[in-house]
């Protein structure tokens, strides 16, 4: 049973609040005194995944939990789903529309970057249903 567990909702196209969830997660982890190298990796992943929800998904949730062993981010969206996961995991591949790219997002580094920074990374996706990403970060 994790001691800290919170579910944050992230809405599609909500650029006004984008980044607030990852800011809250970071603040909590700093209060807990999480090692700075781990904190940096979690910051990168939580921000990236939050922005992904805003830009690419139809909206979803970030389930953030902490226990003695580590930090878990379980991210679920309600679609549209990724047709070719292998392609999506390749650096530089992006489905971000032009309107979003001109805002400086959607360089296609998101998923590979998350995988690189998380200690455990799992992604499942079904077109028409949604995508689920599980990221775990171990604490010493």
């Amino acid at each position, binding site marked *: 049973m994790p001691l800290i567990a919170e579910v944050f909702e992230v809405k599609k196209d909500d650029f006004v609040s984008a980044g607030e969830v990852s800011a809250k997660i970071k603040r909590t982890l700093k209060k807990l*005194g999480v090692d700075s190298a781990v904190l940096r990796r979690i910051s990168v992943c939580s921000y990236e995944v939050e922005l992904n929800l805003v830009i690419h998904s139809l909206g979803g949730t970030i389930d953030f939990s902490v226990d003695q062993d580590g930090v878990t981010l379980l991210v679920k969206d309600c679609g549209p789903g990724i047709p070719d996961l292998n392609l999506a995991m390749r650096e530089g591949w992006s489905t971000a529309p032009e309107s979003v790219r001109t805002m400086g997002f959607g360089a296609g580094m998101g998923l590979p970057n998350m995988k690189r920074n998380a200690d455990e990374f799992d992604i499942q996706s079904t077109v028409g249903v949604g995508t689920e990403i599980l990221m775990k970060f171990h604490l010493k």
Partner: protein
Amino acid sequence: MEQTTYYHSVMLERDKCKGCTTCLKHCPTEAIRVYGGSAHIIKERCIDCGACIRRCPYHAKVAVTDPLSKLNDYKIKVALPAPTLYGQFKGLQDIGRLLDALIAIGFDDVYEVARGAEYVSREIAGRVAHRRVHNGMPLISSACPAIVRLIQVRFPELLDNVVDVISPMEAAALAARKRVCRNMSADPADVGIFFLTPCPAKMTEVRAPQALKKSHVDGVISIMEIYGKLNAAIKDARHFDNLQHAGAYGVGWAQTGGEMLAVGVENSLAVDGIENVIQVLESIENGDLSDLDYFEGLACVGGCLGGPLTFENTYVAKNRLRRLTERLEKTSAPEGEQSELSSEELRTQMLFQPNPVMKLDDDFAAALRKMEQIERVLSDLPGLDCGSCGSPTCRALAEDVVLGFAVELDCIFKLKQKIQQMSKQMVDMAEMTRK
């Protein structure tokens, strides 16, 4: 060591404090609490940025700097004017006149901090150009001591990226002492080096240095304190040409973006105002500014020209500085034989250490339990962040409650609720016992 770590220039004059919550709401490290009718500064958290000095309507927050009388402690007195000083005087056409006025009011020599800035600029440019490992984050300026302390408290994971170059003030102090000892064959102990400061954070940098074992500066005098005397002395200054050496780039350091321009790295970003700097540091932490090579963050809006110990309005001073620097050449610090400082001397002697005072407990399991309790307390608070309890936000009160510094009934809404409950109980009791 503990005592020097928590030296502070920013202090409270308790008799002036009304116990209002203005400062409380604007402290970037949540270092202020109000109880017993007045504000209290949590010394472990304060970064001496001076945000509270600027905000306090009753001038109860002050910066403690050295009195001018401290000059008498030394045989030879050297002034180190921050370039910010140049923008403070109406009608000043020539920086040389101002430097001469410093001699007139009692200093024996003047060394421009702007010249120190030229040496520092060159070192930083070298650091950026020869960076071996790029960790996806820019190198960060170490010039603003309030920002360095902010990073130590709130962004310790960025400390590795703070450049290991001493501040222009320290560079100028070292060069000045060397020059005076050589030219006047003076004993170094007889030479007093005085920095003329726009901000309290510089005083703290001198008294509790983080980058050096000991500061090269002997005293720090507020620009505000020396302003009147200097303004009068400028009128009869004779103007010796040999005091003014720094060029436009060095003098430009007084304002936001001046350092960036002087360092000359194309992919740089300069940000001022502590809240803005916090936002950008968050982005850097998120890996969102990985294309950036250098970041200059300054706590005061307008840069040092906006320091809380300056006399003139920031924008007026900025305009004056612009006109003064237009006449200066875009020189850089002397090189080779002419150079007064070596790379080794410009390097910091110590690493900037993290100061994670926001952490709930040293033990992770205990911190987790406290966080859980905080969330529980917080869920029961009104969430208005009104500050009436004396803590800056409801979350901060919840933390204070769990850490034992406050009680839930410090919240006036909770107190009101409790009083209502109690009065209802009394009415009920009165009803029950009526015969």
